[in-house]
């Protein structure tokens, strides 16, 4: 596992326009990780203590469905943030996440980031807005998928 610098974060779209001083305090909470195909980042229900910024590869979010096993609900490509359950009580994962092929990522320590946010409301607000934007994107994408876009009108109940 390698250290991550503020400059490393500046190269990621998610952190691109974050003030330098925020990147400087966040970088020490992150480590560069390389995981193999099939690595499970977390299981539904487990304690949510991390989040990841995917640098290459793909991460699949899944749900365990009785009788069907792990059903993939969404895949997250490079540039995506994986995990926000660390931010909100009760800090338990709502989905599982698994690497589809080898993945490189920056892994952040959720509890430490929460402490930093509590100590510096400007950082907290900035990060909350960024995670809010990611959640909004995913919510909108989910809503559009519920519309069953590619169905013929008469196929949609």
């Amino acid at each position, binding site marked *: 596992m390698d250290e991550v610098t503020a400059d490393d974060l500046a190269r990621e*779209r998610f952190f691109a326009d974050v003030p330098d001083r925020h990147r400087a305090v966040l970088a020490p909470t992150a480590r560069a990780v390389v995981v193999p195909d099939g690595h499970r980042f977390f299981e539904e229900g487990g304690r949510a203590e991390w989040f990841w910024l995917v640098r290459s590869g*793909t991460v*699949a979010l899944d749900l365990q469905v009785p009788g069907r096993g792990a*059903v*993939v*609900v*969404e*895949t*997250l*490509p*490079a*540039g*995506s943030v994986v995990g926000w359950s660390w931010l909100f009580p009760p800090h338990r994962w709502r989905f599982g996440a698994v690497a*589809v092929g080898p993945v490189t990522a920056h892994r952040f320590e959720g509890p430490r980031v929460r402490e930093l946010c509590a100590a510096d409301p400007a950082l907290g607000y900035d990060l909350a807005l960024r995670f809010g934007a990611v959640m909004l*994107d995913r919510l*909108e*994408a989910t809503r*559009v*998928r519920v*519309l*069953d*876009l*590619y*169905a*013929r009108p008469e196929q949609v109940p």
Partner: protein
Amino acid sequence: MTGARSPVAPVPYRVVGRREETADTVTLVLEPAGPSIPEPAPGQFTMMYAFGVGEVPISVSRTGRVLEQTVRAVGPVTRALCATRRGQVLGLRGPFGTGWALEAARGRDLVFAAGGIGLAPLRPAVLRALDEGAAFGRVAVLIGARTPADLPFAGELDEWRRRGAQVEVTVDRPGPGWTGHVGLITALAGAADIDPAGAAAFVCGPEIMMRLTAEALTGLGMDPGAVRLSMERNMHCGVGWCGHCQLGPLLICRDGPVVPYERAVPLMTVREL
């Protein structure tokens, strides 16, 4: 095309090949049974006539004297077209419409974004871009489909990859054994290996998909003027006479189906036009 054939008279074409793309979608290979229509440009459509049933606009999915059209069976006319067998004759009028205007994108990276059967009108432009590889930068083809089984042209995507295109497919509902992307096509926009600032995009699919994809691409820094969409409206005459295909100030048969994003979006968000 011979002499002064009327634009409203169908030209007979024989079905010389037929491929089932998905459970409800068929590609017909069509050869002129006599004189031909002028060679279509990528993105243009014809009015396809199933004799005795009716006529509908269908995009050309491979251009040339012998051409291909890919039809999804949704109603009486498209069902009749999909049911035509080798050797049978149907009628074509056209080609109509603006086309993708690929020439204007020379020297740029290209993004093709397709929702479901929206890949059909994009296919001739993808093939042209691959044929003339040196004329363009990188080529990314992003495809969203309902399920893996609903993916048209699945059998040739590896060939596109081999010829240098980045082809990414995402599905709403993965079936057993699917190891590719799952989710909305907008998530693929960021995965396209192109330089957004200098790229041109060609988008075809359901209107909401086109709007969100265009937003995602411009959000990455693509110039809205470099994004083109293909709009569908009910058509009747195909030649700007009847007004059936009106979208605000546009007649889609004449001013479209390919329209610049900036022109299309204000019209797409109006509930009734």
